[in-house]
């Protein structure tokens, strides 16, 4: 036994409501780790929303920038093997018709 009926009922109701059906208070931020069971996490605290938004934007911007920089680097550097591959593929296609653009077809 752990306390009175009312206390136990309140404990259970609060926990279950928060886990299953609870909605966050508009005044508090959901700064808990994400859940993957369709319910709201129990741990609720202040959350720096601007930091979350900025971090998301920065991560994706860095990802795009890295990809773009790699493409620019790959296109700009002279590599004899790549030139050889380009020559090879030109030879492959030179046996037949030249590549036509989509509009010409």
């Amino acid at each position, binding site marked *: *036994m*752990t306390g009175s*009926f009312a206390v*136990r*009922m309140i*404990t*259970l*109701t609060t*926990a*279950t*409501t928060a*886990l*299953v*059906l609870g*909605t*966050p208070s*508009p005044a508090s*931020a*959901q*700064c*808990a*780790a*994400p*859940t*993957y*069971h*369709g*319910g709201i*996490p129990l*741990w609720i*605290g*202040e*959350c*720096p*929303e*601007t*930091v*979350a*938004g900025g*971090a*998301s934007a920065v*991560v*994706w911007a860095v*990802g795009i920038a890295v990809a773009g920089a790699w493409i620019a680097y*790959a*296109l700009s550097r002279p590599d004899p*093997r*790549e030139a050889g*591959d*380009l020559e*090879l*593929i030109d030879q*492959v*296609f030179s*046996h*037949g*018709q030249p*590549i036509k*653009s*989509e509009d010409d077809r």
Partner: protein
Amino acid sequence: MTVPSEAGPPVPTAEPHRNASWAGLVGVITLALVLTATYIVAQVIAWAAPEPVSRSAFVKHFLLPEPVPFRVTRILLPIGWGVAALLCLVLLRTRRNGPREAQHAAGPLKAGGAPGMRSEQTVQACRLGILGALLAPFTIMPLSVMVGNVPQMLFCLPPTLAALLLVHRVQLYRRMPGWLLASGLGWGALIGGGFGLVMITWMQRSVPGYFTSGSWERPLDGVRELYTLFPLHTAVVTEVGKAAGVAVLFLLFRRHIDGIVSGLVLGAAVALGYNFMETAYYLNLVNPDHHFTQLWDRQVVGLFTTHVAFTALAGAGIGAARWLPSRRDRLLTSGGGLLAAVGGHFETDVVLMRLDGHRADWFADEALGLLVGIPAMTVVATGVFVALCVLILRRGLKAQAAGLTDALITEAASGRGAVTELEIGLLLSPRRRLLLELRVWRRDGTAGLRHLVRLQQAQLDLATQQWHRRRAGADSFIPEEEPLRERVLELKGTPSSPRPPALPERKALS
């Protein structure tokens, strides 16, 4: 330029392929029935739940109004079952009475075509109708969630599509068609997501009744049970819904899903769709001021580390099952993948909740807890599963490289011109192909790039199917070699073999 169709089986072997695809459709209907039966079980459990009445008024908190999209789904599903049952009757009548009665049962048909063909068309239409009637109602809840959060969805769309592109490029050699991955994404977002949401909602509505009706001798044990039951139930229903998507696409388009790499990638695509829908669900659930945290959690930190990792494991199991000769082994392999996915989902949910209780102790600063704490906890919770995915992918790619090497050498030695000896090194080096694609794109534009990619993918497809044909467990879904070779030669612009092209023949037949 005329390009033959991709699968292009020659006319003499078309019948076995058609039968195989129909058998696939029957398998898909079986899977839809499994999802339906699971839903019915949840509904019966909810109906059998005791009324949440007690001496306390607190239980009224459990009796929140039924969400409208859920109610609509609940009504539409039995209607769908009724439609499916009617179509089943039409199907049975068609089969029993033969082609002539089939025409009456299905109404007037188009002019032309043999009666047997019409009967087959009726059967096919009935099967597709049954499938649609069983599955379409599941899309209501995800669609309502997404429609209600259009601006937020636009935020989530670029990360999801970028992730899908990355997943597509992970197939370093032969790639599945893009539409197949898009179909997986669609299943994950609409059918898998809808099935998950409906089942979770049933659980949410039935648990309070059971929970408040028990004795109150050990309330803490009850709370613990609930904490365990909820993640376990959600892990099972969501992973089953997502894995069903991989299985459905596998059964319908088995020619493209040929091993652990394609299975894993397809699983990841389905999971990206589910993650997209789930983000919308949570954005709908929390206060709009807190949307950025959800985006950080689900579209950055958790994008590849949660749903994608779990369903990729289930997909790898389904993909690996293709070449296993015994039915028992196939079930074991695909079941093992699904079990890993369910286990990963459950473990992640439980461990993340547990670790999050200590986050405030480890990270005094809220911003640090968000930026470092949540990613670190996610790595702890899901790192094993992500590492497992990477290892499986690496092994699958190695096996592909080995199989392709032999097949490409054989094809080059045949002297047919589809693959030359000089091209083998290029085709077997994903890095060189990527750099070449970039250079061709810069020099010839998008048209040139697309042509190059089509050619190289056709060459790799030809070699892949040759490799599969030599396998011990080679099945009837492997396409004929000659049309694949003709397609490569056509893309190269070289004169084709004396054999007449396949496409005009098929056009003439239709």
